[in-house]
């Protein structure tokens, strides 16, 4: 990493963190439209200053640590998810020359960072020393560890077709056709596993306000709560970026500049995830786990074997 990269790093961080902040407002507006109501529309044009108002409220709140909590763990827990999610953006190729690092294990680096994000939710739930938080943390741990397996396996088809773990190589190998057609099973599993990993609705059972008050972040407020939310929204953006990169040809596309294509595709997937939230009800927790091990795992294995067989057959011919 040279010093010339510093402005680029700053630009990425600013875009992602700023994007995550704006998403909090955008999500509520979009949900409002789909549910036939307005959403936050009072402050500023289209209500966009609501973001600033929310930030002011969250950042100036009293930063309270419950006396019964494990202070050390309670304070470091929310940082893990933000750091790991932002780190993962280092390997995302935004354009043919717009990436920080082209690691030859870029895809695995993304998986590693998303597996570290689990700690935030687990430790937050455990350190709170609260029944609801503990149950939320337990659910998060089981859910995220299980779905991590399918998430990793579902991407191996893409790796087989492109012959590389490097995200830049994966995008470039999609010049003749995007991978969402040959890898539709992989895409299907990756999207579902991705939502379960980022524990958003409809798979937000670690939080589940209908049964666990607020789940793992019951005892959190102010800055630390903001960190959890920031991590979650960064995770949503990262997931959309990864779907774009792995299955929809990344920056590739006619007429428009590569960066614009990448942004457009990513934005489309973010909207898709918000629509999912509006459209699909929550499953029960046991249904979620059963879906993983009885449906997702067989699908990924079939996809893996079939892709491998076809790749071998094509190489022979």
């Amino acid at each position, binding site marked *: 990493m040279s010093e010339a990269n510093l402005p680029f790093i700053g630009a990425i961080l600013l875009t992602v963190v700023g994007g995550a902040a704006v998403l909090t407002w955008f999500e509520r507006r979009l949900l409002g439209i789909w549910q036939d109501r307005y959403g936050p529309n009072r402050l500023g044009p289209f209500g966009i200053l609501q973001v600033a108002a929310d930030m002011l409220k969250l950042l100036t709140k009293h930063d309270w640590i419950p006396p019964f909590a494990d202070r050390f763990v309670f304070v470091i827990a929310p940082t893990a998810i933000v750091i790991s999610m932002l780190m993962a953006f280092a390997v995302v190729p935004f354009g043919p020359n717009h990436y920080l690092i082209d690691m030859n294990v870029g895809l*695995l680096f993304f998986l590693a960072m998303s*597996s570290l994000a*689990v*700690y935030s939710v*687990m*430790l937050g739930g455990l350190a709170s020393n609260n029944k609801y938080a503990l149950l939320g943390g337990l659910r998060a741990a089981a859910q995220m*560890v299980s779905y991590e397996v399918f998430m990793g396996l579902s991407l191996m088809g893409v790796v087989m077709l492109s012959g590389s773990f490097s995200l830049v190589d994966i995008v470039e190998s999609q010049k003749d056709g995007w991978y969402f057609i040959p890898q539709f099973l992989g895409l299907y599993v990756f999207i579902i596993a991705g939502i379960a990993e980022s524990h958003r609705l409809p798979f937000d059972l670690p939080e589940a306000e209908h049964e666990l008050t607020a789940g793992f972040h019951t005892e959190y407020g102010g800055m630390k709560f903001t960190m959890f939310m920031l991590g979650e929204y960064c995770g949503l953006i990262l997931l959309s970026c990864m779907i774009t990169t792995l299955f929809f040809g990344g920056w590739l596309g006619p007429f428009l500049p590569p960066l614009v294509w990448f942004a457009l595709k990513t934005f489309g997937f973010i909207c898709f995830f918000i629509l999912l939230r509006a459209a699909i009800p929550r499953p029960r927790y046991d249904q979620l786990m059963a879906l993983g091990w009885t449906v997702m795992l067989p699908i990924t294995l079939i996809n893996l074997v079939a892709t491998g067989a076809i790749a071998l057959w094509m190489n022979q011919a």
Partner: protein
Amino acid sequence: MTLALFYIAGAIALAATGIALTRVNAIHALIYLVVSLLAVAFIFFLLGAPFAAVLEIVIYAGAIMVLFVFVIMMLNLGNRGTVVEQEMMNPSVWIIPSLLCLILLIELSLSIASLKSETNPIVVSAKEIGISLFGPYVLAVEIASMLLLAGLVAANHIGRRLSKMDQEKDEG
């Protein structure tokens, strides 16, 4: 530059492991252990083995340690665990393990001192690892997979029997 990074990462790994050993709170110890694993992964990366580095994070830090935390959460001992640990922390327990480790350390330093240092590390790609895993080391891979299968079957068996006993208890 690389040398400095290497020594810093090594120092962090050693310090974190030392702290992990002496914590009485299991969760605090686990957090330091994760830090130590991350430092070791970084050392792998510096030595030209990015694939091993990433697997170290995915498997050790991201899966095995998570399961440890999961078990601690399931048991949810609270302060009782800390009390038990405190009793176990008396100095006499440390003498023999420390002695054994000291002997190992001396052996290790002697053998490292006799090695010639490699100034230009070769970067090992994922492909080369795959070729050697399914080439010369295929027997070890198969044995490991059999061991895992045995573990899976055993876990399944234990789970089944317990649930049947529960049913009988409910019926009876």
